[in-house]
């Protein structure tokens, strides 16, 4: 509760500061809309924003599931032999620095304009950091822990589940965090650059439309929602998972 209150106070301070700067600076409404007009835009457009948010979350969810699947596959084959490990590492070195949005023109050529292209960009953006973290996680499992596990008679799946997973989970978790962030960025960026979809579009498309209609409060409202979702996912999902897993297991310091 105290934590929640301090966060609300923090947001309030930012809002007050925003208004103070706006009023004392005499900036035009077009460039620096008031907090009230942003809240107003949020309220008037609530249904539209909600459906756009749902759409964004849906394709990000789909993209992440595919990316996690691919990353797990990539990690397992690189764990299974030096040959594959080198291929995956090389691929990662080439692909990881490439921003997902740079893939967009190719994605459009291959998949046409629409969800498939955006999905491709999301998967591409998320899969490399995921593999990177998963692989690092599995490789950094202390050998003595593995051996203790083996001495206790654990083999195969049991060893993987009871020793390897807990030992590498901090890395897996930070991989998921990065993957989620990259997927979120990719979906908004792809729609913002391309505005690819018509009736079906997410928050990036919402920002795009608001920008072209010069509705600055609407643009800020969209940005606010993106930030809020980021915060919500961090505190409601990742923080909870962290508390129940790595903090409980004491694999990381509290």
């Amino acid at each position, binding site marked *: 509760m105290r934590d929640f209150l301090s966060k609300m106070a*923090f947001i309030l*301070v930012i809002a007050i*500061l925003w208004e103070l*700067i706006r009023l004392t*600076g005499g900036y*035009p*409404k*077009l*460039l620096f809309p008031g907090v009230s007009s942003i809240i107003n835009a949020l309220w008037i457009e609530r249904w539209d924003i909600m459906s756009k948010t749902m759409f964004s979350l849906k394709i990000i969810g789909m993209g992440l599931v595919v990316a996690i699947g691919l990353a797990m596959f990539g990690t397992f084959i690189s764990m299974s032999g030096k040959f594959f490990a080198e291929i995956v590492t090389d691929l990662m070195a080439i692909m990881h620095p490439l921003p997902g949005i740079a893939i967009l023109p190719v994605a459009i050529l291959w998949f*046409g*304009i*629409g969800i498939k292209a955006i999905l491709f960009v999301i998967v591409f953006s998320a899969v490399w950091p995921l593999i990177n973290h998963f692989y690092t996680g599995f490789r950094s499992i202390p050998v003595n822990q593995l051996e203790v596990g083996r001495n206790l008679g654990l083999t195969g799946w049991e060893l993987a589940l009871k020793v390897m997973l807990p030992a590498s989970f901090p890395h897996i978790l930070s991989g998921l965090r990065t993957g989620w962030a990259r997927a979120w960025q990719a979906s908004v960026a792809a729609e913002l650059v*391309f*505005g*690819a*979809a*018509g*009736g*079906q579009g997410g928050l990036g498309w919402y920002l*795009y*439309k608001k*920008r*072209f*209609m*010069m*509705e*600055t409060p609407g643009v800020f409202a969209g940005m606010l929602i993106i930030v809020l979702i980021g915060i919500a996912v961090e505190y409601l999902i990742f923080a909870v998972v962290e508390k129940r897993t790595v903090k409980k297991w004491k694999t990381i310091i509290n």
Partner: protein
Amino acid sequence: MFCFKGQRVVAVMLVLVLFAALLSGCRQQDMGGAQVLADEKEKLSTIRVAKQFGLVYAPLMVAEKIDFFSKYGLEVEWLTLGSGGAVREAMAANELDVAFMGIPPYLIGWDKGLPAKIAAGYVVIPVSLVTYDSNIKTLEDFKPEHKIAVPSPGSVQHILLSMALKKQLGDPNVLDDNLVALPHPDGAQAMLAKKDVVAHFTTPPYLFEELDQPGYRVVVDGFDAFGQDFNFNVGLVTEVYHDNNPQGYGAFVQGLNEAMNWVNEHKEETAELLAPEFKIEKEKLLKYLTAEGVNYTTAPYGLMGFAEFMKEAGYISKVPESLSDIAWENILGQVGKREGGPCTLEKIQWSK
């Protein structure tokens, strides 16, 4: 835990300081801008114009190449910006004195308080909705899966489509879910590949290129949708520049008129001059420059016609009370104000 709190306080303070520094920077720049304007008053020097690319902008490109402005004592600083949206934002931020855009995007900006008015009409040119699908004869034939490419939401092409929809089907928004925002070249590419989109609301030269293909037809003609001719673009000058630099303003308008006239009188030279810029053959460019319906003019056409429709359809919240709300004096003087009912020039500012 305490340490964590302390870090947070420091972080917040850091952000505040940075923000304040940023804003004081803005302030200084603003004062710098005023200083520059004061200097300009004495020696009449520069105007910042957004450079744009395309057949429509041929007069601007010629004006830059031949330089029609320096003899009036005006130096033009040409700035390149990414998109129409960026041009309008730069204007709102006073980073730009002159910009060219369609009447609907300008009205959207005007509605939101963009401090600029029309200093010149800019070109009358055909804008049409093209399709290659032989099943699509009229707007009624569009099914939900038929994607229509327009350059951006709120563009002249988008508004013309809405106007045609209202005229023919009674609802301007009925095809909103079919729209795809694609820049002209991408839209033309998708059309020629017959991929993703079945129709494209576009402008020359893309319009001509698409119509040159067998089976590509016009579904909606922009002039029919509007009811008469309209300026494809208008030349806007910001209030700050107009009020503080009348000589610069006058010089720019006069230079633009000269460039426009030069293009009309020297289409062959224009084609020769600009063919390398467009990277097409001179003959092809000449064909485009002399195609039917292309009219390089600075006269105002249809300036008020989009506003009422856009208000009704919900794109803007208010309609200009008179032309003086959206145009500077040279336009107002040209159009005039006939006693006892509007004159021809007043009438052509409205849609039919």
